[in-house]
Structure formats: structure tokens, C-alpha cells
């Protein structure tokens, strides 16, 4: 009967040696983990369990099934095979040891016998093969295809660590097979075929010489054991630590809507000045980073050539967790202001991070410190001062906010004076920007056509504060919220509809429940979709344009509104041609997070220009459709600067709808 003879050819001293080594490894491992955990005390709280079901589901789908990791196919499969290959072998080894040294030794009972044993052998052999495939994929990726996201780490030594891990894994896998092969070559059990790889190796050994080379077997066995233990002991001392930290991080990650930025904590000030101002969860973020570079690949700032890589931000913060007293100051020495200001808060990094790190949270926390210190560029300063004084970033009088309505007769209802169904929060850009007011008036016309009972707040509307908050001006955001909430409370309405996705995001995800608790917050693209679907808004013309649609970050990634605008475009009779980067992969236009208020950064190519090139690359697309007023200005500008005015027209969704009426 097939039976596992675990310590075949292993002298007693070696077997005991293995346990001694095992114990030692365990101690080194525990010490290493303890060192990490001790560092975590740096923190300023925020833990956040509760909702255990959701958290455990996340843990299962993301840490074990690794759904997000698998989204990027090549590295996804690479990681999955290495991970599950290693884990399976580890479990297999553990089972064999228990079978031999626990149940067999103490109770004279073995469970790895018969069919179970045969299955055990075949499964392990397959997982071993998977591991080797994964390692091969990894080696090809690290050393042959060499994608940029795995190069140029902020500390050169980090690359060496990757090499160490790969070499160790390779050696473990190969030596494991060799040991098995030698054992089979000598014992030649009749169930050898159940270990397909071992069996092949065994026949090789038999073919090339002395099949009974038991010394070689012993040496290889010892080698295999030693490097396996070294590898295990290395976990908390290398990036392998993510094996432990990442699941914890995933488990503890925020279950709030992604659009809700963590509020400032007002420790010494509203921001993070030094490492110890970060929360426990942020430190855990830094500790979990696998340096996979996925975030860097998606980052519009990085792509355009600005001085920011979210990967490096997290890596540098992670290194700083380890050397809190190295005399480097967090601001300036570790993370520069240029890096922090380059971020457009597009959320792409957060969205792709396989271990659920929130890079943006830490970036904004550090911005909050800079703003508190007044270390901001002059243009941003003006914009913030204008927001504080006039409630809009344009520095224009409140009384001019509704100037765009002047030609409209009869007057649009004043939601402060009479009840309306829909309170239309128009937003700064749509209200004040001279080249957008035509579009804004079109929106009102379409609403009217659909028989919507709607009104606006006239000069009572204030900037929603979404971007001020992301620029790091938390106090200003709070003030805007207070002012707008007070205005909302004095009005009677059933739903809020916004023009601007930024406004939409904060009203929906960050404003208090008085505003969004029982009343729907809609983006105008959602409302149009509802109106068209329900037949309230009839489009009579078929436009027949070929249209590509740009998902604004704050509508797409932030709020997962991908389909409503596409349905509306299709309803106008246009055909949608998708850009390669669309839906949650859409490239940011570069305006978010207050960037539109700041001095431009010298870059190789502005994100908005890259985007126009992407659209032009689709061939005969005529219209570049957007659903954000800022996008209209950004892309109209980019179409001009890239010289593609004759190829592509930038249109707001409402222009298409209006045309199709």
C-alpha cells in the first residue's frame, strides 16, 4: 500500500537538527514580526473593525483568491502561482511532518496512506510545477522584459531583495524535486507514477549513474531544509513581510465609499508633519507595500513625467517607519512638496493597489500640513483665499454666480424661495467660466424640455469644497460644508443634481447625512439617463457621430458611474468607440485635487494632451465627449495645444443631448 516514509534516508541527528533549526527559525520569525508590531505603536490610532462579514469576505477574495491582483493578468498569474505553489508546498511539508512525527510517532497512525497519499503526492507535484512556472514568469519579468514600474526604486538595495527571494524560491523548488527524485530512484515504490515530476527525475538519475547515491540525497535534503527555513525566517526582514501585513491591511482597510476621504485628525494641526502623526492604518499601509508598481503605472502625474510616483511615496514612507530617528524630516528629506502637489487625486493608485493601500490618504494628510504651514504656491493661495472670501475659486462676486441665467425666461426657480423636486447644484466652473455658460444654459433647457421641476440656489450656492479638501485645506472644506448645509436646510427639495462630478462626489460621500441621508444625489448624466429611460426626455434626432467618452475620475473611479453616460450617448444615436484606457482605467485629465488652481508643473506631456492623443489614435472618432465642466476646459485647451482641432471636437454630454432633442 502506498505510504509516506517521511524521513527516508535521514539519520536521526538530521531529523532532530531539523526541529532545532525549525525552532530557531520560528524564534527569528516571531522576533521579526514583533519588531514590526512594535513600530506600529508610532501611530495615532484609527483601527476600524466592525462589519466582520465584509472584512472576512475581502480577506478571502483579495488575499486568498487575489481578485484584484489577477486583474493585471501576467503579474496576476505570476503572483497567484508563486503564492499558491509555495503555500501548498508549505502545507504539504507540514502535513508530512505531522503524519510522521506526530501521529505516527505518538499514536502509530498515519493518514498519508493509500489513495490519500497518492493524491497528496500528485497535488504537491503539480503545485511545485506551478511554483516553477510562476518563478519563471517572475524572472522573465524582472530581468528580461523589465517593465518601468519595477525599476528605479528609491533605494537600490530593494532590487537585490527581489533577486534574493527569487533565487531562494528557485532553489527550494528545485532541491525539493531533486530530493524527491533521488528518493524515488532508490526506493522505486510502485506508486512512483503518482509523483510525475519526481518520477521523471528519478528515471534521469537512474539513467545517468549510481541510483543509490544516498549521500547526495542527504546533502540535498539538508540544503532544502536549510534554505526553506532561511526563507521563512526572512519573511519579516524583507518585502516578504507583505505575506503577513497585506492580509491584515486588507482586513482593516476602509469600507467607507472610496470617495470619502478620511477627515483630518487635528493632532497638533490638521495634517501629518512627522511619521508619528500617521495613523496605525497608514503605517500598516506602508508595511504592506509589495513594490509591485501598479500604482505608478496608472499615475497620471508619473506618466506625464512629474516628480511623483505613488509607489515611491509608499516605499519611502515604509523605509522611514524603520528609521524614525535617522534625522531626516518627513517633509523635504523623505517626501518633497513637489511630489505632494503633483498628485491630481485621481484615485487610480488606490484603485489598483492589490493590497489595498490608500496612497492618496497619506498624500493629502501631508498636504494638509503644508497648507497649515502656508507652504503653497501663489495660485493655489489665491484660489483658496477666493473660496474663503467669495465661495468660488474665480474670485468673483457671489452675486455674479447666476449671471449665466440672465437671458433665460422665465427665470429658473430659486430653490431658496420655493420648493422644487430637483435642486440643481451648478458648481463654480459651470457658473462662472465664460466659455462654459452656453453649456450650462443648454443643461437648463434640457431640464425644462424634460418637464423637470428644478431650481438653483443663485448666490446662495458656495463651492462644495471637494477640491479644497483634497488640496489639503480641511478647515476651509469644513466651512464650505457648514455654509452649504445651512442653505440646503432652508430649502425644500427631493433630490440634488450636480453638474460637476467633484461636487457630486463630496455631496454624496462626504457631506453629513442631513444632505445625502434620505435624498438622492445625482450627477446630471445619471439624471439624463433616468429621464431618457423613463421616456420623459425624448430625443428625436439621431446624431450618428463616432464618439469616444472620457470617464471623469470623480464620476468613474470615485463613484463607479460608468454606464449612465454611455447609455445617454447611445440614446443620441452616436456610436461609442472606447479609448484603450476607459472606465476604471481612464486617464485623469490632470485638473483634480486643486491642480487646476496651481501653477503648471513642467512635464513631458500633460495628461490632458496624452489623452487627446489617445483619442485621436482611435482613428475616425469625431467627438470627445465629457461629463465634467473642468474637462471641457482642459480638453478644449489640449485639443488646441496638440493641434488636433480639425480632427476632434470636445463636447459636453449635454451638447449631444441638446443637439439630439
Amino acid at each position, binding site marked *: 500500500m502506498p505510504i509516506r516514509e517521511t524521513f527516508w534516508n535521514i539519520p536521526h541527528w538530521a531529523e532532530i537538527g531539523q526541529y532545532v533549526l525549525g525552532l530557531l527559525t520560528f524564534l527569528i520569525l516571531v522576533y521579526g514580526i514583533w519588531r514590526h508590531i512594535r513600530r506600529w505603536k508610532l501611530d495615532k490610532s484609527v483601527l476600524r473593525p466592525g462589519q466582520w462579514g465584509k472584512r472576512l469576505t475581502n480577506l478571502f477574495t483579495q488575499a486568498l483568491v487575489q481578485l484584484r491582483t489577477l486583474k493585471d493578468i501576467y503579474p496576476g498569474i505570476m503572483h497567484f502561482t508563486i503564492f499558491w505553489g509555495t503555500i501548498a508546498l508549505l502545507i504539504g511539508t507540514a502535513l508530512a511532518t505531522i503524519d510522521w512525527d506526530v501521529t505516527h510517532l505518538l499514536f502509530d497512525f498515519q493518514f498519508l496512506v493509500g489513495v490519500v497519499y497518492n493524491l497528496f503526492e500528485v497535488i504537491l507535484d503539480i503545485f511545485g510545477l506551478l511554483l516553477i512556472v510562476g518563478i519563471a514568469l517572475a524572472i522573465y519579468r524582472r530581468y528580461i522584459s523589465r517593465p518601468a514600474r519595477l525599476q528605479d526604486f528609491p533605494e537600490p538595495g530593494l532590487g537585490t531583495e527581489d533577486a534574493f527571494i527569487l533565487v531562494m524560491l528557485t532553489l527550494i523548488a528545485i532541491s525539493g524535486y531533486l530530493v524527491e527524485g533521488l528518493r524515488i530512484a532508490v526506493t522505486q515504490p510502485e506508486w512512483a507514477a503518482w509523483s510525475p515530476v519526481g518520477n521523471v527525475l528519478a528515471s534521469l538519475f537512474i539513467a545517468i549513474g549510481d541510483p543509490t547515491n544516498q549521500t547526495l540525497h542527504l546533502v540535498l535534503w539538508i540544503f532544502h531544509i536549510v534554505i526553506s527555513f532561511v526563507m521563512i525566517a526572512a519573511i519579516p526582514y524583507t518585502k516578504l513581510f507583505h505575506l503577513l501585513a497585506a492580509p491584515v491591511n486588507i482586513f482593516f482597510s476602509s469600507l467607507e465609499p472610496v470617495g470619502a476621504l478620511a477627515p483630518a485628525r487635528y493632532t497638533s*494641526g*490638521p495634517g501629518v508633519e512627522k511619521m508619528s502623526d500617521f495613523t496605525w492604518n497608514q503605517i500598516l499601509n506602508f508595511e504592506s507595500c509589495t513594490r509591485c508598481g501598479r500604482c505608478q503605472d496608472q499615475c497620471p502625474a508619473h506618466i506625464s513625467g512629474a516628480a511623483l510616483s505613488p509607489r515611491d511615496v509608499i516605499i519611502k514612507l515604509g523605509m522611514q517607519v524603520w528609521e524614525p530617528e535617522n534625522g531626516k524630516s518627513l517633509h523635504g528629506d523623505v517626501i518633497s512638496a513637489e511630489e505632494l502637489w503633483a498628485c491630481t487625486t485621481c484615485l487610480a493608485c488606490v484603485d489598483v493597489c492589490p493590497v489595498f493601500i490608500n496612497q492618496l490618504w497619506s498624500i493629502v494628510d501631508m498636504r494638509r500640513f503644508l497648507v497649515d504651514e502656508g507652504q503653497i504656491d501663489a495660485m493655489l493661495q489665491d484660489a*483658496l483665499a477666493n473660496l474663503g472670501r467669495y465661495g468660488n475659486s474665480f474670485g468673483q462676486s457671489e*452675486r455674479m454666480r447666476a449671471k449665466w441665467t440672465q437671458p433665460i425666461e422665465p427665470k429658473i426657480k430659486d430653490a431658496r424661495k420655493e420648493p422644487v423636486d430637483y435642486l440643481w447644484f451648478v458648481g463654480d466652473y459651470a457658473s462662472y467660466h465664460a466659455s462654459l455658460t452656453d453649456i450650462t444654459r443648454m443643461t437648463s433647457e434640457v431640464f425644462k424640455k424634460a418637464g423637470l421641476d428644478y431650481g438653483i440656489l443663485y448666490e446662495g450656492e458656495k463651492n462644495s469644497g471637494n477640491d479644497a479638501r483634497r488640496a489639503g*485645506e480641511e478647515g476651509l472644506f*469644513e466651512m464650505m460644508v457648514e455654509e452649504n448645509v445651512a442653505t440646503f436646510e432652508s430649502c425644500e427639495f427631493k433630490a440634488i443634481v450636480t453638474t460637476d462630478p467633484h461636487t457630486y462626489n463630496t455631496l454624496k460621500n462626504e457631506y453629513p447625512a442631513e444632505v445625502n441621508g434620505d435624498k438622492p444625489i445625482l450627477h446630471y448624466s445619471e439624471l439624463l439617463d433616468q429621464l431618457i429611460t423613463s421616456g420623459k426626455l425624448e430625443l428625436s434626432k439621431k446624431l450618428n457621430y463616432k464618439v469616444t467618452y472620457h470617464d471623469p475620475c470623480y464620476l468613474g473611479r470615485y463613484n463607479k458611474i460608468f454606464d449612465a453616460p454611455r447609455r445617454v450617448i447611445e440614446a443620441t444615436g452616436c456610436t461609442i468607440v472606447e479609448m484603450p484606457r476607459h472606465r476604471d482605467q481612464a486617464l485623469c485629465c490632470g485638473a483634480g485635487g486643486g491642480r487646476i488652481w496651481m501653477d503648471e508643473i513642467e512635464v513631458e506631456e500633460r495628461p490632458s494632451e496624452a489623452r487627446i492623443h489617445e483619442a485621436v489614435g482611435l482613428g475616425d472618432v469625431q467627438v470627445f465627449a465629457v461629463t465634467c465642466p473642468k474637462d471641457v476646459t482642459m480638453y478644449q485647451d489640449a485639443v488646441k495645444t496638440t493641434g488636433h482641432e480639425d480632427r476632434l471636437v470636445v463636447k459636453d454630454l449635454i451638447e449631444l443631448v441638446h443637439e439630439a432633442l
Partner: protein
Amino acid sequence: MNIVVLVKLVPDLVEELEIDSSGATLDTTFMRMIINEPDEHALEQAIILKEREGGEVTVLGPAIEDIDGVLFTAFAKGSDRLIKLVDGFELEVNNHALARAFTSVIRELNPDLVLTGVQAHNDLDGSLGPLVAEYLGMSYVGYVSGVTSSGDKLTVRKEYPGGLIGEMEVAIPAVLGIQSAEQPPRYVAISKVRQAMKTATIDEQTLTELDPSGGPTVSQMFQPQVGERAEMIEGDIDQIAAKLVELFGDLGVV
């Protein structure tokens, strides 16, 4: 160095200005009063000096409209004492009256240096700085864009048109009219202003009488004609060109 900064509130030009029914003053219904911009530079310069050389900054302003907000902001930026002059102020008080009122308070503070904005857009009777200086018997230099101190002397950079700078030496105590601070006025986060509202106190100094003598009396105000849209020059290309050349002549550019 003991520095006093004088601030004045002026109508915000972002708002459409209107003239009231008397025809001789501004309609204050929709008027928003904000800190005079050069005064912000004066405050910034004072704080820069304090940071560089130590000392104390006292900010002084008339109690109109949102003076508290202005003063708390000044505190959040790094000034030490806040004083407002209460009673008797109309929105539009002339600078002679304001200067006399400030003078009595400044004397008690016994400063080494008084800084104020070089001018305000609504000055009708001269700017505040020279008036205050003369009442105090101090010397005055205006249009200043940089100050360094050494002992009882200051070296200031005074700006002339076309970018020419005159480097002047001034004995202290002195009053300086600041055109622009060495660095643009700093941003102060709203959270800091809110903090200042909780921690800082504003001293109130009550005035009994304002004496506006020394300024003119306005009999009428009016708004200069601004055409809604450009006046379009019509005609064929050569006629338009000729008309433009004529316009250039009228403007004195050819």
C-alpha cells in the same frame, strides 16, 4: 523690535460699486469691506521682521464690518496683540480722522516701527502712513519693498517707477508705507484662524470723537463711462487700419 501694523478696510472692488441716492457717497448696501491689500503686505513684512529679529507685532484697525476676522487672521499669521478702535466709524472714514485716532493709541504703544500699506484705493485725502508719521513726529518712507534693521537705523528699499530702487537709511522710530513685503503675504489655513478666534482677544479702545478736517468734501460721485462691449470699427480693411492708426495717435502711442 516693537512693531505696530495699521490696517484699514476698503470696499471690495470685486463687487459692483454703486453710488447712493445723495450722489456723493458709495451705496453701502452691497458693499463688502476687505482688508486693504497693501496692508496685508505691511502685516507680512512685520511678521517677517519679527521672525528675523524678534519682537512683538501689534495690529490696529478701526472697528468696521469684519475687522474681527481681519485681526484674528493677523493673529493666526503670527502677530501678538490685536486692538480695534471702536465707536464713531462710518464705513468711509477719511484718513486724517483715522490717522488722528490711530495716533493716540500708537503713542501709548511706543513702537520702534509702524508699518502700513503704502496706499488704499479709496484714499481721498492722502494715504494713511505719512499722516500718521507726521502726527507722531516720526519720519516716513513709502513705496517700500524691503526692510532690514541694524541698531537704530533701518535700510529700506523704496520703489520708483520703472523698477528703479532707492536704498534709503531711516532712523527709528519711523513709519513705513509698504508696497510689497519681501515675500508675498502668507496663506493662513482656516483651521488656524478658527483656532485664533478661540484663543486670541481683541482689545477695544474707545474713541470719543473723529476729526475729519484736512480732507476734501465730495459733492458728487460718478462712474466713468464703460462701454458694455467694444466699439466696433467698421469699414473695409484699409479704412479699419486707418481708423486704428488714428486711435493709436489719440492714445499717444505713435
